[in-house]
């Protein structure tokens, strides 16, 4: 597949069309109907959560949040393929993949409500926290890949970055190191057409992002990222490459960020309604839904019902997060080093003395 879809040939890999019809059965990944249905539900859950979060945010109940809206098939396919033993190195729009690894929605809520505790991932292993400094996480993926190869383990790393992220030096260094070291990392570029307000054509003059793989001597492919099956199939093939010790793979997943960059962004400033409508036709959930409805695996009624259930579940976890215990003063010091140095103990002590003083002072003032 990587030969035929060598990015130099300028082909985008697709399996289903905008109506959810399979273009060529040979291209279909190996997956049961049952698993497809589960994947669809998971993607729908992610979308439901996403939309709900945006409304929480409008109510001032959560801070800045970067939605996944419109990009769910990429995480959705990753969720199918990623295993317990594998590593997930997210950027910040991979909710579906994170949930699949065992991160809870509540934990994500905690993070975006302003608790580091949300990054602890109590029930999930081998997931890095979301990474804010663009593209920097890619190098971690390469390093983890080195450990896997070094210890001859049968693991894989799935690492994410945005189209904007491909402009950073760290993108270059990460894929380049991975190419030299031939490590089992699947790099997935979520090309959602924008880095905040900046369109991809202003990030690079390159013909595609997938074609950048050539600069590193690694396999690359451009995939319709709104096509769940295409994503899954590409990931399957990438997995084989990694398992064969042929090194990393660079996947450009072409998609569209249907929502705002974050809840504090206004996309109407930099894109048109026409463009949004054009992309709406390629919506990944619509396409997959059409597929499962055609196959009689799903119905509008089921969908309506399940969305209601999902909403309740999202709400439940949200309220749990809202009732999270207060952030304690010692927690800002406690995790800085493996053992707290005297200097930090002194600083913590000073803070607590201040709090004692303040309490006294404020109660005095109130008495007055």
């Amino acid at each position: 597949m990587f030969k035929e879809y060598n990015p130099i040939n300028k082909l985008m890999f697709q399996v289903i069309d905008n109506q959810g019809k399979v273009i060529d059965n040979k291209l279909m990944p190996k997956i049961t109907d049952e698993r497809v249905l589960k994947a669809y539900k998971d993607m729908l859950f992610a979308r439901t959560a996403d939309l709900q979060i945006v409304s929480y945010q409008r109510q001032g109940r959560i801070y800045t949040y970067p939605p996944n809206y419109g990009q769910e098939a990429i995480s959705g396919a990753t969720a199918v393929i990623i295993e317990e033993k594998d590593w997930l190195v997210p950027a910040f729009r991979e909710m579906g993949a994170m949930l699949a690894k065992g991160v809870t929605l509540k934990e994500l809520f905690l993070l975006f409500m302003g608790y580091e505790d949300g990054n602890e991932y109590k029930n999930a292993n081998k997931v890095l926290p979301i990474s804010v400094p663009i593209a920097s996480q890619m190098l971690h993926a390469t390093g983890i890949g080195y450990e896997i190869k070094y210890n001859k383990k049968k693991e894989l790393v799935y690492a994410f970055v945005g189209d904007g992220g491909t402009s950073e030096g760290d993108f270059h260094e990460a894929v380049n190191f991975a190419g030299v070291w031939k490590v089992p990392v699947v790099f997935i570029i979520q090309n959602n057409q924008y880095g905040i307000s900046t369109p991809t054509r202003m990030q690079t003059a390159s013909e595609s992002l997938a074609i950048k793989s050539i600069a590193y001597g690694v396999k690359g492919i451009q995939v319709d990222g709104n096509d769940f099956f295409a994503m899954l199939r590409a990931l399957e093939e990438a997995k084989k490459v990694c398992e064969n010790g042929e090194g990393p793979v660079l996947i450009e997943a072409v998609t569209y960020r249907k929502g705002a960059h974050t809840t504090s962004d206004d996309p109407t400033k930099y894109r048109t309604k026409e463009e949004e409508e054009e992309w709406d036709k390629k919506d990944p959930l619509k396409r997959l839904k059409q597929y499962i409805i055609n196959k009689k695996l799903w119905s509008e009624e089921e969908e309506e019902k399940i969305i209601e259930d999902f909403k309740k579940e999202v709400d439940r976890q949200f309220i749990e997060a809202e009732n999270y215990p207060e952030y304690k003063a010692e927690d800002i010091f406690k995790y800085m080093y493996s053992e707290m140095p005297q200097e930090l103990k002194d600083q913590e002590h000073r803070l607590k003395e201040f709090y004692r003083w303040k309490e006294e002072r404020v109660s005095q003032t109130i008495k007055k």
Partner: protein
Amino acid sequence: MKIMNMVGAINDALDIKLNEDKNVVVFGEDVGVEGGVFRVTENLQKKYGADRVFDSPLAESGIVGTAIGMSIAGLRPVVEMQFCGFIYPAMNQIISHASRMRNRSRGKLETPMVIRMPYGGGINALEHHSESMEALFGHIPGLKVIAPSTPHDAKGMLISAIESNDTILYMEPKRIYRAIKQEVQEGKFTIELGKANVLTQGKDVTIVSFGAMIREVQKAMVMAKEQGISVELIDLRSIYPIDRETIRNSVKKTGRLITVTEGPQSFGLGAEISQIAIEEAFLHLEAPPARVSGYDVIVPLPKGEHHYMQDAYKILYEIEKIVKY
């Protein structure tokens, strides 16, 4: 005079310089079409065109590095780092080139450029969006580091910075981007860089601070005043070089010094100012210069940030301690 907040004042300064000097160009991530994530560069692309105000690819080293080249060739780039926490990829270009090109070439090449960036906490932001790393930059020879605390200063200092032939890091206290409104002189005016500003005269204790913390100090001063404590407040404005003279004069008068800064404590601005005070006014000191600063920890996420931040009470606490010393 016109009522402006700091965002407006900075925008006005850019507008004036873009209008006046064809060599001025403004670029960075999302500063063009979008007008900046804080709207600081709003409307400037429309007004001056996309070759003068434009979006760059997402790469901080690239932004600073190309600005260095432009400035060597004669332009006066004003670039934006989207947040202080995202300037680190550009550190090599700043430390190895922007701050050195003049010295390296014995004055033949210059890099007149301004690196603007919002800094500081208190806005309920994600990780990396709340940092105040003035001390890192203050330690880099060849760089000038400045930070305004009012719309008026923001405008005048930025115009001066753009006109300077040095490389200037211009730190914008985003917490008070829109919080303070003020009458600001219309049209062009400049403020001499490197000069601190005595905002309030006082006699018991000198407080040196800058940027968004000035407002916190002022709140503390109200409470201190109730107790009859008279604070002299110095707005540093220039992190490097530091205005020794203003600090010396004040500390000689009050005999007591507190610094209030947002960044981590160790190797921070506070220690440098204390050192200046002891170098300049040791025999006048009646108490050890104290620092109210961040702790040596990562700025906590919003729910924990109040533990970290220097608020009016923390400042008052130190004021009371130092006058009783």
